């Protein structure tokens, strides 16, 4: 190699501009604009969520108290929301009891076993389509199928099954995505050690997919808390009676444990109060219920993430 550099063929010998010259002002501007725009979008979402929380926290101040959470609704006084709060939790558990196991098993099938063919393509298409059917239509379907044709009347079970129609495809799809996101290397490593396919799924794939599965559970659960349209026609919107928590008779309409009773949930109750517009304390009750609903969703999400972390630890280090 010689000391003086010779130009490579096709390269000019012209002196290079100084590194300090401001030739790229346009691209620097574009970079700044993009940074600010993206930051602003992110902040907007955060502010939106924050302002909803702040609004209802302020509105519900002085309304939400232990007695608001623990007493029955009352015509004359503020009363409470205990039965509808209980129904929201009850419906959540009932729906998730069906949607989570079936959704995860379906997701495992779709991700680990199903061949890529017309049938699985149709299943995925159906999953996406059902998720975007307007929920009032799903409610109508539940009304026809369970309430009328099966003669169940307005029942918690009819509501939970209608919600499952709505949620199971979403849960299955999200579970499939979470499982597919597990790197192929992990499966190969396990299979190469002589593990069977099921052992590989059970001990490697599912534990690694838990964060994604938890996201699926949270999104699915959020719909149960928030859904009013599906439940109007299936689990009913009457003001609930006083529940007797020592009554385990599953045919009794006042047993809070029975799936065969009408079960007005918190969201449906908010809808009902707001649209009927009766009662002296209507606005306070609506604000208080909304604040409780938001808190429940946030608590559930945090709780689910915590459980997810525990599960991951348990399953990966037995």
């Amino acid at each position, binding site marked *: 190699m010689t000391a003086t550099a010779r130009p490579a063929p096709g390269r000019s010998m012209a002196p290079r501009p100084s590194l300090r010259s401001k030739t790229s002002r346009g691209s620097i501007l574009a970079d700044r604009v993009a940074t600010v725009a993206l930051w602003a979008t992110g902040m907007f979402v955060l502010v939106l969520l924050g302002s909803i929380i702040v609004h209802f926290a302020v509105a519900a101040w002085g309304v939400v108290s232990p007695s608001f959470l623990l007493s029955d609704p009352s015509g004359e006084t503020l009363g409470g929301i205990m039965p509808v709060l209980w129904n929201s939790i009850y419906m959540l558990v009932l729906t998730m009891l069906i949607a989570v196991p079936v959704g995860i098993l379906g997701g495992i099938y779709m991700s680990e076993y199903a061949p890529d063919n017309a049938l699985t393509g149709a299943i995925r298409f159906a999953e996406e389509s059902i998720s975007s059917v307007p929920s009032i239509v799903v409610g109508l379907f539940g009304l026809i199928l369970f309430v009328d044709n099966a003669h169940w009347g307005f029942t918690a079970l009819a509501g939970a099954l209608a919600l499952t129609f709505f949620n199971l495809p979403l849960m299955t799809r999200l579970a499939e995505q979470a499982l597919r996101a597990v790197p192929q*290397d992990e499966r190969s*490593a*396990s299979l190469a*050690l*002589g*593990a*069977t396919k099921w052992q590989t799924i059970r001990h490697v794939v599912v534990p690694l997919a838990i964060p994604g599965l938890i996201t699926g559970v949270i999104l699915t659960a959020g719909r149960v808390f928030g859904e009013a349209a599906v439940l109007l026609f299936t689990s009913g919107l009457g003001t609930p009676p006083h529940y007797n928590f020592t009554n385990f008779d599953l045919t009794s309409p006042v047993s809070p444990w029975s799936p065969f009773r009408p079960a007005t949930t918190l969201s449906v109750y908010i809808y009902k109060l707001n649209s009927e517009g009766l009662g002296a304390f209507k606005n306070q009750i609506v604000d208080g219920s909304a604040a409780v609903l938001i808190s429940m969703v946030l608590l559930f999400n945090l709780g689910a993430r915590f459980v997810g972390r525990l599960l991951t630890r348990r399953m*990966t*280090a037995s």
Partner: protein
Amino acid sequence: MPATAVYPEPLLRRVEVAAPVAAAAGEAVTQTGDVKIATEHVSISYSEKVAVRDVSLTVQPRSILALIGPSGSGKSTFLRCFNRMNDLIPGASVKGEVCLDGENVMDPQVSVVELRRRVGMVFQRPNPFPMSIYENVAYGPRRRGQNDRRKLDELVETSLKRAALWDEVKDDLRRKSGLALSGGQQQRLCIARVLATDPDVILMDEPASALDPVSTLRIEELMRELREAYTIVIVTHNMQQAARVSDVTAFFTMAEDRAGYLVEVGPTGQIFTRPTERLTEDYISGRFG
């Protein structure tokens, strides 16, 4: 490389490697016919594309066979037929016979689970599970139903000792994740994980290509030690590595429509000093590939 490469005839030659290998390794000449693995006319294709063509060779017990050749010459694909990992690739089809201790592993009656316990595999990228070091090593035995705590402890310790990793990790076996180790340590953990399943054969697919030179040398040292008890087949791009560790070297080549030919197989010393084929000589001297 010229588009029309001139291939020596015959393309395939079966070299009986038993006697020269043992002699090269400076040991008593083992009985001819002492064979751990024998492949007979193995051809592997992915849907339309042929990756390995009619390869027949034998591997002696307690020896190291290195598969060398340019990218795309089918050596990794060939390696993966020993533990039937090609089964996992949709559209892959394997013809011919792969015999392990005289049993054809391609037989539909063969349990791949049992086969993979006998023929372990170490991958190119270290891939410990995101679990503790202990659980990584105990993974194989646990899946076979071994749950006795004391036996597992013992197995984890001996496997880590054999993989030359014990001293570095013995203090936080259960607390530290396998992923918290360095690349070289992760690869030795993967080797320990394989050893814990008590295999006869260990397949290594470019086990050191993602590692720094010091870690690479440690893996090579380890391979020489493991050779006392196991049969090892290694795919490598690193010819010095093949020359340093292996007893026998098989050279695969590729060209248009010629991917996956076994050009030559023989004692490593001979392949690297006096190869029979022009192609081998060109490749090892860096003139092609």
